[in-house]
């Protein structure tokens, strides 16, 4: 078998696929953060916990009610999104007039509560979730599991659809306008507070969707959110906070970079994203796709 830069192609492409899968999760999660940050100016620290809730909701629906994966893919984002809407209406909306740091602290507190509740109910170990698409394709140079291919394709589609909705439709233009001048948009008869609520629910729904997608790949565990969220924050800083395109491109890109690092220099694979972040900050403090403020 031929070798590429001293590495067997099956290893190289295998790690690139793993990187793309991780990148898909980075992209969806940082996209949700970007959508929420764009309109609410809130760093949603609960995002990781909401991703974890998505995975657990899928697991519970399957084990307690027999709801299959494909139905969960639709139902879970709606259910978890509704809990997000309740949180935004009951608590978060009370502190918009304060310094933005307070919303970060409030969502951080909620993340602690959620993680604590799930840990006391399910322990720190993981629960398995059956693979809805077993088997795979032999591409000659590597083996491609069906489910992983589905995750990459589906998340790319979700990301592009979200991008299209925000950047190319009427609704999206309202959203972007409300980001700039909420008072003016309100004067044109748009119900901005409701838009804010629905946006938060949508961002939370994205996190939950990522959770459902992750359930068959990773163990469904109370820790899965807090382990991932910090990396996603770094992705957000690199991409430029609030930038939709930045979230998608850097999400997938950094996943790939991480996968390649695992092949060539495994020791650095956990830190590479943070190293890139430090370099990007030195050169472009607003992030790759951010606008300087």
């Amino acid at each position: 078998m031929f070798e590429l830069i001293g590495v067997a192609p099956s290893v190289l492409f295998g790690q690139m696929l793993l990187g793309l899968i991780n990148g898909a999760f980075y992209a969806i999660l940082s996209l949700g953060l970007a959508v929420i940050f764009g309109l609410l100016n809130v760093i949603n620290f609960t995002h990781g916990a909401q991703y974890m809730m998505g995975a657990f909701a899928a697991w519970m629906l399957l084990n307690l009610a027999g709801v299959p994966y494909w139905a969960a893919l639709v139902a879970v984002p709606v259910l978890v999104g509704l809990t997000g809407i309740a949180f935004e209406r009951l608590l978060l909306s009370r502190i918009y007039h304060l310094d933005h740091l307070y919303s970060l602290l409030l969502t951080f507190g909620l993340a602690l509560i959620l993680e604590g509740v799930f840990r006391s109910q399910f322990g720190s170990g993981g629960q398995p979730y059956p693979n809805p698409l077993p088997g795979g394709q032999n591409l000659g140079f590597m083996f491609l599991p069906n489910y992983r291919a589905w995750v990459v394709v589906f998340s790319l589609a979700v990301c592009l659809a979200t991008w299209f909705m925000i950047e190319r439709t009427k609704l999206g233009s309202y959203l972007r306008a409300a980001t700039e001048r909420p008072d003016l948009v309100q004067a044109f008869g748009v119900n901005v507070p409701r838009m804010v609520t629905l946006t938060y629910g949508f961002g939370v729904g994205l996190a939950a969707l990522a959770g459902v997608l992750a359930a068959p790949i990773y163990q469904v565990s109370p820790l899965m959110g807090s382990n991932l969220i910090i990396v996603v924050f770094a992705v957000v800083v690199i991409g430029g906070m609030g930038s939709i395109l930045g979230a998608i491109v850097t999400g997938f890109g950094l996943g790939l970079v991480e996968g390649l690092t695992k092949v060539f220099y495994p020791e650095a694979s956990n830190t590479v994203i943070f190293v890139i972040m430090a370099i990007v900050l030195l050169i472009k403090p607003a992030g790759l796709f951010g606008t300087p403020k």
Partner: protein
Amino acid sequence: MLVRMDEAADPAKTPADGTATGTAKLPAGRSAAFGWLFAAMMAFGLVAPFVAYPVFVMKVLCFALFAAAFNLLIGYVGLLSFGHAMFFGGAAYACGYAIKTLGLTPELGILAGMAFAGLLGAAVGWLAIRRQGIYFAMVTLALAQMFFFVCLQTPITGGEDGIQAIPRRPLFGLIPTTDDLTLYYIVLALFGAAFLALYRIVHSPFGQVLKAIRENEPRAISLGYRVERYKLLAFVLSAAFAGMAGAMKTVVFQLASLTDVAWQMSGEVVLMTLVGGMGTIFGPVVGAGIIVAMQNYLSGIGEWVLVAQGLVFVLAVLLFRRGIVGEIAALIDRRTRAKAERDNG
């Protein structure tokens, strides 16, 4: 706006509402009040090991210093660092390494920890102060996580095990520290000295510039202050004192581990400061006492401690943003003002 208790509690600085004459002497009164409160705190510290387990009180003191150092940034410069665990934990490792491997005495170990944290603070601060507000918080968090992974992977930190069984060498090579009570009074003295140093920093001309930056950064720039330098120096000082706290913790528990550098630790110090009162000098101490006690005495309820902490967070943000000390100060302030108004007729 973050709640700025020291300003809110100081009516002499609020716009004239007829009470200024009655409170003009307040700054002198405040420093006297500080003296009494500090004496009371230290007196309480002197008897505390006879009431509670000394190691527990030492833990409170270490975290109180950590929170006070963190408060220097959030309370007086308005910068929320979400990565302060890297200074606390980094110094814990540096101190542990200095004592265990290099064979240094505890005071040198603590100095080594402070120096390491200060240098790390200079590097991180240089990168992070380019951004403000939430951006600053995210950048510090992400850099701290990078540091976490470095600690996880370099051999000198002992990976998952950390640095264990760090000997309690005699202080200055003379005073034995193996006895918990002796060590307790050393830690108390160090804490008192660091606390006074932080008070001095906050109430120096340098501290006044920091507050000016917090209140209105563009104005401070237009007044000719080189704001970035002030912020960076404040960041380094905060990091060094956080490092002192981490190094003291290493000496007490003879252990430096990944818990010290994990991001949850950064969250805990925010919680302590928030609960006690951001921008108050005693708030972080009170907050640290409450949170450490909560973790200690509620440990029986297992994972629910996390839920309890989260609830405290949510309640503090929604109901008492000034923190416990801040709310008390505001109450006293309202009383004094009402009295001054009565006296003035």
